[in-house]
């Protein structure tokens, strides 16, 4: 019968879990793959987040990041860090049943993998998607990436029970350092997603459509090449208002996303969230506190306004309270 050959020490298990999630993340890209993995191909598919017996209160959470060269080491760091997101959300009880989708954004005018979209998953399978993301390292060099194509996919090719059954919006986090193109191109939609569009859609209109079903946030890692460029920040603030987060320590990306959701869901306030971080031994508190100061103010305001404002805020014209200077028209 034996007598327990495998360590049962809590701290040994914790260290092993960290090691394994840190090293397995790049398998697909590092193998030399230069085309989108079948499981991440956005052509002709709809991604679904469904309630089930195990997860009756599913909440759709999508994280899409720019994988082009202008982001330098950022995509790789995200591939290493993001597997911690699910555990963080569950551990802290910020969300009962998170369904997480990972994806990547490139440049449809010149990259081989302009859009990669995983599945909504409630267990570690989304980490497998993360490992299948191809890192481009290209990009167009015009300070633009095909974010608008990703917005189109999320708006029209996802189906999420949190919204459709319970009227609760999901979450979309875009992580990058560049601008979207001004409109969704019909030809790109046809070749990459497979829909026939009669005419292009303005990116502002696309965003407005998307925000009816998702809280959308943009995270700008300050270590990337266009970081601090006011044109990028201003353009996103014009689209998203206060939902633009500057993050100076990318290691804190999971904590930033987790706390943003926790604040917005009313599960915590910023002080309690930062205390949670300190309690689990995270040193990211200062970084996250700075990054989320604006979001916290918005969340408090939103809670005060109540449910009506939740719908009203979805409109693009109500969301630009932070974008009042240096506006770039898209």
């Amino acid at each position, binding site marked *: *019968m034996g*007598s327990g*050959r495998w*360590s049962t020490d*809590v701290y040994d*298990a914790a260290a092993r*879990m960290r090691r394994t999630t840190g090293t397995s993340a790049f398998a697909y890209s590092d193998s030399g793959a230069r085309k989108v993995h079948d499981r991440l191909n956005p052509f002709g598919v709809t991604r679904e987040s469904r309630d089930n017996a195990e997860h009756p209160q599913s909440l759709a959470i999508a994280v899409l990041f720019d994988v082009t060269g202008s982001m330098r080491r950022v995509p790789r760091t995200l591939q290493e860090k993001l597997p911690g997101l699910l555990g963080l959300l*569950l551990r802290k009880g910020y969300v009962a049943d998170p369904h997480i989708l990972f994806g990547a954004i490139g440049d449809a005018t010149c990259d081989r993998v302009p859009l990669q979209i995983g599945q909504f998953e409630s267990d570690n399978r989304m980490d497998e998607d993360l490992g299948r993301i191809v890192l481009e390292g290209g990009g167009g060099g015009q300070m633009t990436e095909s974010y608008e194509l990703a917005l189109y996919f999320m708006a029209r090719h996802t189906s999420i029970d949190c919204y459709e059954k319970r009227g609760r919006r999901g979450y979309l986090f875009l992580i990058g350092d560049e601008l979207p193109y001004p409109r969704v191109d019909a030809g790109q939609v046809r070749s990459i997603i497979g829909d026939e569009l009669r005419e292009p859609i303005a990116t502002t209109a696309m965003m407005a459509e998307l925000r009816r079903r998702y809280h959308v946030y943009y995270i700008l890692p300050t270590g990337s090449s266009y970081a601090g460029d006011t044109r990028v920040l201003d353009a996103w603030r014009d689209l998203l208002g206060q939902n633009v987060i500057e993050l100076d320590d990318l290691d804190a990306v999971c904590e930033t996303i987790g706390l943003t959701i926790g604040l917005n869901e009313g599960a915590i306030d910023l002080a309690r969230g930062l205390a949670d971080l300190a309690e*689990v031994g995270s040193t990211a508190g200062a970084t996250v506190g700075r990054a989320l100061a604006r979001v916290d103010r918005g969340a408090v305001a939103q809670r005060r306004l109540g449910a009506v404002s939740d719908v009203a805020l979805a409109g693009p014209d109500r969301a630009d309270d932070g974008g009042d200077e240096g506006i770039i028209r898209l």
Partner: protein
Amino acid sequence: MNRGEHVAVIDLGYGDAGKGTVVDWLCAARPVPAVVRFNGGAQAGHNVVTSDGREHTFAQFGSGTLRGVPTFLSRFMVVDPLALVAEADHLATLGVADPWALLTVDRDALVATPYHRLANQARELARGNQRHGSCGMGVGETVARALADPAGAIRFGDLRQPAALRGKLHRLDDWLRDTFADLPAAPPAPDDCAVVFAAIAARARTGDQSTLDGLLGRGPCVFEGAQGVLLDEWRGWHPYTTWSTTTFDNVHALTDAPVVRWGVLRTVTTRHGAGPLVTEDERLTRRLVDPHNHTGPWQGAFRVGHFDAVAHRYAVEVAGGVDGIALTHLDATGPDTRICRAYVCDGVRTTRLAPGPARDLDHQATLTATCLRAAPLLDAAPEDWPGVVAEELGAPVVLTSHGPTAQDKRMLVPAGR
């Protein structure tokens, strides 16, 4: 065994007969949708050696894992999440690309924690030299605690409910400290334990009976038993037993489908830890010292005896019969490995230990006393081991093992089938 039939593998002795190597062979012989664990917990130690020299002691992952066969841990398992992590790590070093992707756990399976383990060890320490041969893994303690405090029991599905999980771990920690004055080690902080459990839950898939039904519908599965029938909680030599049903009962509870029942036996009868071993022979223990069965700090010494047909006949009887026997360690036989067909107890020759009514621990204690007074009548080493074992136990020997790997197995086609 037809190619399309599920097979259940149990041990007809005290464990250690080679269930792992038999399950590995079954997984090599045909495509298997899943290996299903249906009893015990992480105290299992099923050793598998591959032909290219890789070696793993399976505790919770199924013994088909090195062949890429998925594992389903059924609701009868006591799952030890922490032990899964180290086991998965070792499997990864052996070339299993993603061990977690091969694992599904029934959300109703009980979860063993460090608090159960410490309670188990504290109890064994308090028994002094009257130990029961427990493994010190807390499997029995987990079952006992769940019976005493059902609302506080942690099931695998609870690992996805952080707030409730933290509460239950604190409750266990409080109970442990209130119950035992002397603990062999300091328990970990319940909040730390909750964090790690949640991370593990995020990696392991959960399922339920419908998941299992789906696997069983896809093709012939293998049910991998742990421990041995002679350690069964109701049929073993009380109190030297395990908190687990080691017969086919759980298999029949998990499926109505026909299952071919295999019993595994070794050409010597062995026992790891305290309790009766009628045919024990120190010379055999010395000669056949098992590299995988060291003296455990909780379990005690590994002991070897001659093939005990009396005890194994009893095991076949209480298991409700077997369709075939897998006989291992034929490479370890010699003139000194003899066979016991009868005991002498209080001057009376006995060939049968009579099973009592179901769940009658007084009767089991009587059998224990009989075994402790009995002396074995040893016959000469058989020439034809498979033939003699089949005759003594009334079931055909269908597989023989002559070494550690699947290549060392021989399938026998029993006459008349």
